[in-house]
């Protein structure tokens, strides 16, 4: 396919869903069938075009790709900078390189599966809904069906825009649109309320969860924006292929210094911390589960959190240079990632909400990727990003199917008080929902990293291999640290996944809801089956060539060579410039990480099965972990008390600050105090003046005193609330400033006097 066709296709990839958003909003008039058909059409168009572009790149020769990684490049002039026709433009464009291609393979497909699933998820009943803004009962129809698909289309379009963007600003635009969409989708059931019993786990309603997600990511985005500004000032462009080339990085390193590039990398990384829910800004993600399950799948698999990882993968050369200049940067990134991975994994162990476990597992897996980037494992991070997207989408959709089945039970038994998401009330769903069960098993095993078969094993193994190689070969202590912490996290991952599977599916139903659950409709099961294939097969494209037995058979580490081509040349040049220690390396085969990953995966699954699966829980039986863990269990169940900590550390102080410091102290104390002081001073002066006047002057001083008092009263009413006075004062001050600047610049005083 020629270049121009590819360019056109690339431009059109995000166009479909974005257009569909407007079409649904403006024209469908709440016609449900039309809405979902349109949404499908948009995303199918993206899928076809995205895969066309992606497969065109897959077919290219890796060596050729390595020389010219950016296959598709097309930019439009956006806004003229400087004089018209001076030729300086801020450009907006699209670019496709191997990294983009694998994302283009993953995103539209996962989104399309979620779209198919959404139709089944929302469209069960045919009766009218009892209320807008709450989850409909199974016999009702979702009243905001069209709105849902409109937002989802916008979400998908924004993600695709972010993926194909060739510069940081366009990426940021997609990023922010997604922020808005996640806000409106998390709060989709805005009228929902919970009654939390005292002592229960705190649980916030969707509208607050939406605000929380929005505000938390906003904090990160402000910092990220600083990073973008810094980026522009250092590189003079926002274009990735220009700025992040060896030449561009060398130039920038001369301009601002290598250490500053590390700071820049950290600023941009903060955006990832917010978007990909890393500690300390991870708190929004578990609450984001308040959205409908397809939304959770989109946010946590295909789109939103992937965007954060995608960003740091995209700017990897910058990060690499930054780490080389300042190893602390690497420690920060790797440390945050590893800590998040372990912390979230421990929390997931003690969760009872079926989606809650998955939420924390998402945070944990994202931590794996961030840690991988922190130790320079570029390909491993990208690989895990792709495989994780597939199996996490599968897991979320399966859990949605489970919840759906439980809600059918609720409808059947008229029990609307029991939480259908609570795993303690499930059990024995294996026979009632066989397709969902097998899908969940495949997803869960991929997440645990069941050796050889599943995709998760290969990608996780690669992270371990990289970490170990960093330690064994480069004596980088960060590598060892990451290796150990991630191994622990991986063990816990396998453990809690097995726990979840056992609690949900094995044994006998522990509640009448589970007893009356049944399999979901075909709209929901077909995407599960399709995603199951990818959750297994996606890993086979990244089998290392030296892997015993399998490696020689497959003999083509396709993913590695393909994605490596993106920056191979750049990293090589950077190495010769001594801006990075070493380019991208082909790892030799190592036994330690392989054995470690086998042990933690099988060990975790084994221990989990031994505790939960061997003898499934009976009705009313408490979790067997409660007793041995003791005080630790509530600690984990309450999510390490992060929310409460933030309440104390950030929110209360802010409230306190605005209440006490700003209002009481500054406003009432200092400002009013000064005014009162002035008043009292002049009053005193006036008093003594009056005394004096009595004796000496007469009315004259009286007048002076009155004037003083009047002025003081005027001063008190300085805050008039009148816009005209404010403008007047600001204009006067601005004038004074201008005069000052002019005077200094042109030595006006010398001219005038």
């Amino acid at each position: 396919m020629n270049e121009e066709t590819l360019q056109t296709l690339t431009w059109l990839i995000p166009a479909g869903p974005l257009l569909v958003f407007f079409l649904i909003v403006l024209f469908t008039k709440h016609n449900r069938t039309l809405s979902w058909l349109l949404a499908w059409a948009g995303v199918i168009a993206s899928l076809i075009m995205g895969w066309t572009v992606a497969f065109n790149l897959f077919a290219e020769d890796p060596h050729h790709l390595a020389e010219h990684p950016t296959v598709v490049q097309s930019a439009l002039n956006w806004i003229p900078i400087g004089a018209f026709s001076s030729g300086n433009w801020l450009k907006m464009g699209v670019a496709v390189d191997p990294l983009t291609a694998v994302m283009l393979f993953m995103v539209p497909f996962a989104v399309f599966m979620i779209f198919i699933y959404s139709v089944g998820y929302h469209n069960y009943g045919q009766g009218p809904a009892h209320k807008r803004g709450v989850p409909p009962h199974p016999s009702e129809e979702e009243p905001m069906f069209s709105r849902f698909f409109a937002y989802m289309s916008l979400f998908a379009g924004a993600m695709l825009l972010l993926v194909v963007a060739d510069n940081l600003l366009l990426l940021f635009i997609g990023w922010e649109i997604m922020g808005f969409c996640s806000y409106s989708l998390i709060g989709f059931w805005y009228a929902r309320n919970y009654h939390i019993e005292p002592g229960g786990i705190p649980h916030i309603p969707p509208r607050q969860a939406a605000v929380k997600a929005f505000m938390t990511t906003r904090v990160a985005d402000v910092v990220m924006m600083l990073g973008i500004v810094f980026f522009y000032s250092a590189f003079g462009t926002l274009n990735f292929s220009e700025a992040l080339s060896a030449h561009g990085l060398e130039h920038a390193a001369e301009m601002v210094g290598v250490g500053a590039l590390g700071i820049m990398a950290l600023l941009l990384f903060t955006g990832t911390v917010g978007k990909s829910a890393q500690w300390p800004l991870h708190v929004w993600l578990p609450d984001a589960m308040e959205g409908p399950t397809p939304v959770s799948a989109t946010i946590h698999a295909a789109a939103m959190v992937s965007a954060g990882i995608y960003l740091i993968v995209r700017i990897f050369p910058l990060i690499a240079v930054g780490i080389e200049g300042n190893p602390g940067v690497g420690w920060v990134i790797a440390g945050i990632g590893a800590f998040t991975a372990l912390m979230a994994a421990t929390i997931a162990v003690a969760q009872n909400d079926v989606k809650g476990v998955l939420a924390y597992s998402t945070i944990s897996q994202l931590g794996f990727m961030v840690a991988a980037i922190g130790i320079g494992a570029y390909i491993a991070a990208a690989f895990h990003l792709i495989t994780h997207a597939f199996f996490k989408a599968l897991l979320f959709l399966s859990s949605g199917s489970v919840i759906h089945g439980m809600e059918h039970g609720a409808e059947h038994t008229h029990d609307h008080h029991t939480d259908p998401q609570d795993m303690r009330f499930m059990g024995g769903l294996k026979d009632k929902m066989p397709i969902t069960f097998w899908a969940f098993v495949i997803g869960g095993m991929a997440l645990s990293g069941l050796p050889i078969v599943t995709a998760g094993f290969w990608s996780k193994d690669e992270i371990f291999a990289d970490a170990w190689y960093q330690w064994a070969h480069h004596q980088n202590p960060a590598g060892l640290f990451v290796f150990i912490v991630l191994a622990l996290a991986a063990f816990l991952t396998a453990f809690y996944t097995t726990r979840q599977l056992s609690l949900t599916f094995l044994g006998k139903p522990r509640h009448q809801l589970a007893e009356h659950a049944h399999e979901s409709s075909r709209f929901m099961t077909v995407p599960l089956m399709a995603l199951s294939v990818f959750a297994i097969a996606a890993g086979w494209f990244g089998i290392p060539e030296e892997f015993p037995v399998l490696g020689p058979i497959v003999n083509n580490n396709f993913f590695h060579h393909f994605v490596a081509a993106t920056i191979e040349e750049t990293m090589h040049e950077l190495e010769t410039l001594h801006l990075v220690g070493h380019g991208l390396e082909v790892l030799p085969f190592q036994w330690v990480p392989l054995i470690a990953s086998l042990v933690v995966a099988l060990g975790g699954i084994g221990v989990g099965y031994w505790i939960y699966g061997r003898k499934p829980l009976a009705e009313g039986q408490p979790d067997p972990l409660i007793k041995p863990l003791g005080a630790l269990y509530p600690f984990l169940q309450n999510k390490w008390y992060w929310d409460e900590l933030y309440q104390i550390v950030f929110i209360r102080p802010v409230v306190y600050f605005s209440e006490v410091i700003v209002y009481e102290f500054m406003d009432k104390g200092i400002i009013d105090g000064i005014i009162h002081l002035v008043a009292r001073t002049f009053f005193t002066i006036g008093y003594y003046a009056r005394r004096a006047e009595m004796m000496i002057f007469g009315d004259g001083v009286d007048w002076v005193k009155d004037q003083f008092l009047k002025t003081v009263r005027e001063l008190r009413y300085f805050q008039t609330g009148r816009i005209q006075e404010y403008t007047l004062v600001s204009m006067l001050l601005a004038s004074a400033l201008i005069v000052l600047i002019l005077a200094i610049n042109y030595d006006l005083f010398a001219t005038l006097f």
Partner: protein
Amino acid sequence: MAEQITFIIGSILALGAGFIVVTNRNLFHGALALMISFLGVAAIYLSLDAGFLAAAQLLIYIGAISILIIFAIMLTRRMMQTTEDPFNSQFLLALAASVTVFAILFSAIVYVWPLTASNSVPLAAKTAVADAVLQDTVVNLGSAFVGADGYVIPFELASILLLAAMVGAIIVAWPKPEDVA
């Protein structure tokens, strides 16, 4: 000759009528003066060989904005007592401020500008330019507004701004149900 006359008449109209706008008690007459002031500005544009802009000035400022203002004045006419003081309490300070601003601008134009501008910038005389170029200005303007290498994005943004302003104005000024009853 004609150019100077146009400029002088335009300036007198613009400034004189502008003075009436800011000082007149009768708001309606103020609006009329505003229209005349706009007309004067249009004349100034003419003296600058910007005929298209002069016509646009007539169409938009006099044909649209002035009429809008007159409508607003008529709709709020109960508040238009000509007896009360047109100025607020800070009018002296305001006078001082605007005189200061003018002084700054004036000194910037007369004193500072010659200091900054290098001799290459012609201040006294217009740049000589062929009539054909000026004739083409409208064509160039058109292609600059819709061309990909021009102001197409700002232009579209401006149209969106206008649309939003229109919708906003309608919503803001729409009588609330309780007001109607």
